[in-house]
């Protein structure tokens, strides 16, 4: 996230992938994915090690995270939601840690790449469609034609419903990706302002406290966005799974 002290603000350079291990296709993005996976595993394994009746801080965190996501699954999908809980839990923590780790200095936000968020959305989409087909068979296709609509309108309604169904595949990743990119670009721009203003003499240095303060505020806001977007991704997955399980 280091600002380049040039005359142009290089706001997108921070998203560039750099290979970590020479010729292997292993970038810093993948390193942070591994770190996120290990942190999640560590939270659950080490957090639940004491198995205390009155949980300590770590155990309370692990238990609260578990309970919150279980409630989300069961509350949104219904009693069948327990079956999808591991998937939603993994998805939530992968995105949450991606967003939060990206806020650390010198870290890389892997959720700021559309390829990553689109990959996640594709997994969700395939699982949702597969589950709907498995549970309802060919009856699933009645999803694209609401009951009670005039049959004459079918050529119009069915394509519109199919496009609406497929548009999840675009709106789900774009929402997360756009939020992450926007936040990090703002960080970079304001950080560049600090460098540029302090180059303009003592008055500029004094005034550069304002972009600095703005960035401090922005860190708090981005913490909110990081948690919120992980939550939104998870609850939308739950809503789509609800639609797949119950059809309408």
């Amino acid at each position, binding site marked *: 996230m280091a600002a380049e002290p040039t005359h142009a603000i290089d706001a997108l350079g921070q998203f560039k992938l750099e290979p970590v291990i020479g010729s292997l296709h292993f970038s810093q993005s993948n390193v942070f994915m591994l770190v996120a996976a290990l942190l999640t595993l560590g939270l659950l394994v080490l957090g639940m090690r004491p198995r205390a009746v009155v949980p300590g801080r770590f155990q309370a965190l692990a238990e609260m995270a578990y309970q919150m996501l279980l409630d989300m699954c069961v509350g949104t999908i219904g009693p069948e939601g327990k079956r999808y809980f591991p998937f939603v839990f993994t998805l939530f923590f992968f995105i949450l840690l991606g967003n939060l780790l990206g806020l650390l200095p010198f870290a890389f936000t892997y959720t700021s790449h559309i390829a990553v968020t689109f990959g996640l959305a594709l997994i969700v989409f395939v699982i949702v469609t597969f589950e709907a087909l498995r549970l309802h068979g060919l009856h699933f296709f009645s999803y694209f034609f609401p009951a009670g609509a005039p049959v004459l309108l079918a050529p119009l309604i069915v394509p519109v419903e199919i*496009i609406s169904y497929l548009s999840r595949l675009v709106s789900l990743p774009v929402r997360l990706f756009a939020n992450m990119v926007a936040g990090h670009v703002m960080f970079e721009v304001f950080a560049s302002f600090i460098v540029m203003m302090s180059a303009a003499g003592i008055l500029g240095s004094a005034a550069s406290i304002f972009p600095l303060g703005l960035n401090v505020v922005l860190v708090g806001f981005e913490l909110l966005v990081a948690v919120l977007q992980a939550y939104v991704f998870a609850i939308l997955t739950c809503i789509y799974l609800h639609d797949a399980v119950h059809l309408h």
Partner: protein
Amino acid sequence: MDPKPGSDASGTGGKSPLGVGLKVGVELVSALVVAIAIGFALDRWLGTRPIFLGIFLLLGGAAGVLNVWRMYAPPDRLGQKRDKTERDKTD
């Protein structure tokens, strides 16, 4: 990482004008993108350059409006059982 502030904030965050605008915008554009992609692919396959693109452009606009309608529709219409409170939680 506290779950409670996160879920509370999402309720307020989704209602801010910027949140609503972003939400609606993403839904409208994503439906259009999908529709244009389908229309373009069909045209390339069948060699009928502008026809399917035009048709699917209109259908995509309709699908985008349908997405937005689903988000803000009164819960008893269209046989939608998903309740509005859940929809409101999303950004």
